[in-house]
């Protein structure tokens, strides 16, 4: 039962990450390799707010979201005019810079030692310390993010993003400020990813920089690519598949020492085949063109 709850909690955290990445990828066509950076910023921000400043978790989440969204502008505002591969590079650069800071700014983040003993969240006297309670919290937050995303996708804002994705020139010609919309989409992405980071920090109660590496960014981008982007279904299906697949391997009796490699190999094969035969992903609406 605990095992099942743990998987469900991980699914809710990754759902938030993939749903938020869906916005820049599936709605504006910007591939980002910085998702783990925002995830990490959220985790560290909440941990530090709670432990150093004694701020309540829920207030901390709001602050972390704002911080992460503001930081995202540093990547997106200057680099959005860069096309295709160059935007990926700029986001990758941000990812590496953030990781290096988390790893080396020892006074603030304790670097490779990580931050242990992050307190559990508390609301009106309820402490979310057991797995069922925590699942209720993470599930509720994931549902919240899904609802926000659903509203967003069908709102005028979402429609403009879609218009930009389909035909940027036309969007400009009807007077839409494409750059502003892209920056906003990226900021929302950064903010929502920070929510996932916050949840992760208080769930595991120990964070260190190795959870927020470039590999993690690649993994999150793969989730969106496998599931497909441009709608809600895609990222959710991608998350379910990519989280449950390695759990399935566990039952096949593959030894623990090689399991991570086998898992990565399977992910990679799935991705290569999908890109070749179904570039829109399993349930996506948007093809990266």
């Amino acid at each position, binding site marked *: 039962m605990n095992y099942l709850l743990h998987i469900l909690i991980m699914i809710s955290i990754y759902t938030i990450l993939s749903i938020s990445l869906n916005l820049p990828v599936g709605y504006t*066509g910007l*591939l980002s390799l910085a998702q783990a950076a925002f995830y990490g910023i959220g985790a560290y921000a909440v941990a530090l707010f709670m432990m150093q400043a004694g701020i309540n978790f829920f207030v901390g989440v709001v602050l972390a979201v704002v911080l992460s969204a503001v930081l995202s502008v540093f990547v997106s505002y*200057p*680099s959005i005019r*860069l096309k*295709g*591969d*160059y935007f*990926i*590079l*700029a986001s*990758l*650069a*941000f990812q*590496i*810079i953030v990781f*290096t*800071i988390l*790893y*080396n700014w020892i006074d603030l983040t304790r670097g490779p030692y990580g931050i242990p003993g992050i307190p559990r969240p508390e609301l009106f006297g309820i402490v979310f310390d057991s797995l069922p309670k925590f699942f209720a919290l993470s599930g509720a937050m994931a549902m919240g993010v899904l609802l926000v995303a659903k509203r967003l996708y069908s709102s005028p804002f979402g429609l403009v993003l879609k218009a930009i994705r389909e035909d940027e020139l036309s969007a400009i010609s009807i007077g839409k400020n494409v750059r502003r919309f892209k920056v906003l989409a990226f900021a929302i992405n950064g903010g929502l990813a920070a929510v996932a980071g916050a949840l992760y920090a208080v769930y595991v109660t120990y964070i260190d920089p190795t959870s927020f590496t*470039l590999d993690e960014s*690649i993994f999150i*981008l*793969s989730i969106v*690519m496998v599931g497909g982007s441009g709608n809600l279904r895609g990222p959710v299906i991608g998350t379910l598949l990519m989280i449950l697949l390695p759990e399935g391997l566990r039952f096949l009796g593959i030894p623990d020492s*090689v399991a991570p*490699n*086998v898992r*990565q*190999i399977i*992910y*990679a*094969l799935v*991705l*290569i085949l999908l*890109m*070749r035969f179904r*570039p829109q992903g399993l349930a996506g609406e948007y*093809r*990266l*063109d």
Partner: protein
Amino acid sequence: MHSRKYNAKSLFVGKVFFEKLSIYRTTNIFHIAHGAVYTASAYVFYSLYVSKGYSLLLSLPPSLISGAVLGVAMYFTVYRPLEKTNASAGIKFISSLAIYTFIVNMIALIYGNETKVLSEGLSDSITFWDIILTKIQVYQFISFLVLLVLSYIFVKGAKPGRAIRAIGDNSRLFKALGLNERWVKGMVFCIGSAIAGLASIITGLDMGIDPHIGMFAILNAVVAVIIGGIKRLEGVALGALLIGIIQNLVIWQFSARWESAVTFLVLVAVLLYKSGGLLVVKRRVEEL
């Protein structure tokens, strides 16, 4: 300190020339999987040179050839079909990342994750004035210069070099003239991969190898290429040199811990203010 400077330079030895200049220019593929070729060649070399105990000269050619074969295989099994379906740059990039992940994890599965040493013990050192270099570092520097000159001659002069430039400039026209695009691109992957292998082995002899060296090398090479400017060979060499110097200044003045952060800050700065790189080719508007 001194050793790092030459490492950094030699790191880019091969990657630099063909990573972007040829592979990117002719195919428009952001070839991250080049890093996997880099890693794989070093491991083939490890099996022959260390495990089997063959001599250096005997182990080198098969390692380079297997790197080249791997690179060409990547092109024909993954990229070529994608090109036929007119896949976007994003899709090719994701596929490339996936190939990289696939190969690196295969290597980790076979050889394990720990660092392997290619050459035992300390190698002899040579002293010029107050600079101390190991023998390997001297080889690194020499191979860097030789490759620089060779690829300059190749790209500027020989017929295949001209074909590479032609595809880069206008691939549609190239095909329309009835020239064999597939052959040229295959050749680019072949040569580029062999050189990546050489770079990884030379670097590996000095610093040892592990399955993840490829990503570090490829990222540095990409940064060097973009800083210098994609369109010109001189730019690439300049970028490699600059990055090497900047990284070593950081290590010297601050600490090695901030090396990658500064490298990528430089990249971002160049992307923002001079997105064509430091040495830009002047082109007519209609060519852009």
